[in-house]
């Protein structure tokens, strides 16, 4: 399988704070990777570097064959092939659900409105809320909003989907509806990188689990290995805390 994301010796600083330390990670097409670790471990920063919402300071990032540099054109090329779902949904509040979904296809892919709307309805159906197409985000529940956000990313027909703690801002009863959609997506073969604390999801969906702490990748394991016998003391402590809930 072809490698779609390659991180090599990537470092990131905020001022003097060393946020990411020599991160090496290669993700193949179709692979599902769950990134976990304590808060402040650098997981969000790492996936935000993949579509250059954060700029890395050294090392290399290659996404879909394009190396990320200051070159705005390449950044745009990468971004249109990489979908992202945020913790706080980030739906455009002044646009209806349908407008949220068709904006990028029309502006970036230069798609005709009718075609963009047809695709939008297809993905809204896939996330099981086609009836909400003409509502505004504020009229939807958190779970529905996050599903719209997933559909919005999918409308660009991306090669990779990044999820940055997609269920952390949700009420408990809404978490499963979002995870179900993500699980469906995984089964369909989407390449996914998910930062999440949902260990059940990780266990059932992930091909590999990346455990990070203090800006470093501490271990990379299969879910079976990771949950049964974590290699590092730090991972054991983390799992002890998170599974105690």
């Amino acid at each position, binding site marked *: 399988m072809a490698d779609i994301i390659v991180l090599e010796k990537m470092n990131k600083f905020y001022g003097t704070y060393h946020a990411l330390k020599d991160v090496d990670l290669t993700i193949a097409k179709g692979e599902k990777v769950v990134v976990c670790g304590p808060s402040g471990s650098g997981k969000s920063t790492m996936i935000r570097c993949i*579509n250059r919402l954060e700029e890395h300071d050294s090392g290399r990032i290659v996404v879909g064959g394009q190396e990320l540099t200051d070159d705005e054109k390449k950044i745009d090329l990468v971004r249109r092939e990489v979908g992202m779902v945020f913790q706080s949904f980030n739906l455009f509040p*002044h646009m209806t659900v349908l407008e949220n979904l068709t904006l990028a296809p029309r502006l970036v892919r230069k798609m005709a409105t009718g075609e963009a709307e047809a695709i939008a309805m297809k993905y809204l159906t896939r996330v099981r809320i086609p009836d909400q197409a003409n509502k505004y985000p504020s009229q939807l529940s958190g779970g529905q909003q996050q599903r719209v956000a997933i559909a919005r990313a999918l409308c660009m027909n991306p090669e990779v989907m990044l999820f940055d703690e997609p269920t952390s801002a949700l009420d408990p009863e809404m978490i499963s509806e979002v995870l179900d959609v993500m699980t469906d997506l995984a089964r369909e073969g989407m390449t996914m990188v998910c930062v999440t604390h949902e260990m059940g999801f990780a266990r059932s969906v992930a091909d590999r689990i990346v455990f990070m702490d203090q800006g470093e990748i501490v271990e990379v394991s299969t879910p079976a290995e990771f949950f049964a016998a974590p290699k590092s003391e730090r991972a054991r402590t983390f799992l002890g805390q998170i599974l105690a809930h």
Partner: protein
Amino acid sequence: MSFDLSLIAVSLPKILQGLGLTLNLLAVSTLFGLILAVGILLMRLSRRAWLIWPAKAYIYFFRGTPLLVQLFVIYHGLPQFGFIRQSVLWPLLREPYWCSVIALSLNTAAYVSEILRGGVLGVDKGLIEAGKALGLSKFQRTSRITAPLAVRLALPAYSNEIVSMLKSTALASTVTLMEMTGVARTIVADTFAPYEIFIAATIIYLVLVWIIQTGFTLVETYANRHVRKT
């Protein structure tokens, strides 16, 4: 002190003869001011010191000095220089109307650019990131996300600025323009009845303010329709 109610009724239609000029000054200055404000805003939001610094100085100067003084500098001050009177600008600066429009526009631009900047800073950064993640260009993010949301956030403060501008047009009466206050002052000088005449003018200004505020409330309600739950 006698008080003549009928004088209010009689003077109302006379003062209304100045309404056209009042609204003209308001509309033209507001338009020019807005265009200028967007330019200053873009300078202020840029990351280049040589653009930011003049914008800051402009805002500081025009917010920091009285509008009346600005008007007098333009009207009485500039013609003191012979080269101004020889210049191509003189046909414009010769006219009290254009002096008033220039002063009002320059002044409101400083305030409006700050009002709009407040709106821009109020837009959730996460939305801009969502736009980036979708591959929207900087121009597309600005025109589709930042600008429409910033305008919505700025509307309440902007409506205050328009009301403030309406009142500021009264200063044009100090440079011979016969807008509503100019007419009112002339009637006062003729009738020696300041209370009745200025009360009549007050009534008209209050009605105009009511119309402006109601108009903006409607616009705000429409612009914020996405916030309402159904």
